[in-house]
């Protein structure tokens, strides 16, 4: 059975799509068969981050409506052959999806893939509910900032009450906390919530801490998921996330501010 993972947050702009792309590609690089689904109907973004926007012919909504087969809509990644992308529709809205048909598509995909990564839209409306409904696991993407933490908390409530697993009384969705745009320096200066603060409020296991990094914006614009940038802190942090998703114990990096040397301290460098 494929593991269905939803990348969600409640709040917009916290890094759901960036994380979905990095995690999807990272899992595929490990040799797993992965499909990335963009649930953000009407605001098609995942294909841009993945760098396959020019190859979109059919989309998720076409498949739902029976206007195209899954194979026609799935785009094979050019870098890793075991990764496919199911893009969102740019022209429809979020109401174009319905639970029953989404279920059928996921079931079909589950036959040939190991991981189904669902990139959720922001908010707590129908679109986001659709993305999380069938999930086995949830990666709750959160910025170390109060409103983002509050929204993540709200989404965690939804995961526990509005998902298929909750409705059928099955084992609850496995929740993971992914802290993004983290800046240890600003935490030390008291401007940002710390890893511990967020863990304390949300009380779910920590999957990863992605440091604030210039590499992320560069990667998005280039259509190359940041996990491919193995030199960057963000890329390395996403690598660790993959290891942990696959059951490895990896120490957390990039959560301490860099210690400045005596010289740079003297000269304010």
């Amino acid at each position: 059975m494929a593991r269905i993972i939803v990348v969600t947050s409640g709040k917009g702009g916290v890094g759901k799509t960036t994380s979905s792309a990095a995690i999807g590609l990272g899992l595929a690089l490990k040799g797993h068969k992965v499909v990335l689904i963009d649930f953000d109907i009407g605001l098609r973004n995942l294909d841009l981050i993945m760098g396959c926007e020019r190859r979109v012919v059919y989309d998720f909504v076409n498949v739902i409506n029976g206007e195209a087969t899954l194979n026609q809509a799935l785009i094979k990644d050019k870098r890793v052959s075991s990764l496919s992308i199911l893009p969102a529709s740019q022209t429809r809205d979020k109401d174009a999806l319905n639970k029953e048909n989404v279920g059928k598509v996921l079931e079909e995909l589950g036959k040939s893939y190991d991981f189904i990564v669902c990139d959720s839209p922001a908010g707590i409306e129908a679109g986001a509910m659709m993305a999380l409904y069938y999930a086995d696991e949830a990666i709750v993407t959160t910025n170390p900032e109060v409103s983002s933490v509050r929204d993540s908390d709200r989404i965690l409530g939804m995961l526990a009450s509005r998902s298929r697993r909750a409705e059928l009384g099955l084992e609850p969705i496995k929740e993971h906390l992914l802290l993004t745009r983290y800046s240890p320096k600003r935490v030390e200066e008291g401007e940002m919530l710390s890893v511990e603060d967020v863990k304390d409020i949300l009380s779910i296991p920590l999957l990863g801490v992605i440091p604030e990094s210039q590499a992320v914006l560069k990667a998005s614009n280039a259509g190359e998921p940041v996990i491919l940038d193995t030199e960057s802190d963000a890329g390395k942090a996403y690598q660790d996330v993959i290891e942990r998703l696959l059951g490895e114990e990896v120490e957390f990096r990039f959560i301490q501010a860099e210690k400045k040397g005596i010289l740079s301290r003297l000269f304010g460098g």
Partner: protein
Amino acid sequence: MADASIEFKGSSFTLSVLHLKTSMLAHIRADLTKKVAQAPDFFHLVPVVVSIEQVAGLIDYQAVKALIEEFNFIFVGFTGAIEKEQRQVIRQLGFSFVNTAKASAADKSTLVKDTAAKQSSASQTGSTTPATTCHLYTDKVHRGQIRSGQQLYAKEQNLVIIGSVSAGAEVIADGNIHIYGSLRGRAIAGAKGHHKAQIYCQNLEAELVSINGNYWLSESMEAHWGSPVYIHLTDSELTSSKLI
């Protein structure tokens, strides 16, 4: 500015209450003599309220007052959970009757036990809260965190939460609320009118706490912010006390 020279304000004081257990003046006198002899300075000119709650039978109010004053107490008035008629008698004699929070709560419980006729007399005295003082509540136990946007109501029950209550969440109980975790959201205990309801939590960072309609916003919780605390009502004021 006709009343610039005076101002009336409510305030609470600690007063000594003398609980009478008999109406026999001779016995009271004998015991008072012994008591005052132990610390004459301590009792000198101390204001005293006399509770007649435990006295069965007729009381000579005038004589009680005279006796108290004989021992150099300052007589303030009578108190105790007693019948309305008896209170009227006391007032007609020109004595003040001091209502206590405890007395009025006890008053209500006797009314509940009594007949419907007494219930109607409660409404005549202007009591607006429903007389639900028979609080033998069972517990509703919730395991896990109450997340932002979620609401949990323990109807005619106490609420026990093994986990935290997030900011933006709301927990309500007709009885007490126990939170084995942090309280960051809202907690409303004694929702249907229960003066003795209490709220317990291991870490107070709440947006709002309310007992029997009396509420506090975060700014009123500064004294025990971030501490394990229980919150209760004294008279009609919320009070927080440290648990450990």
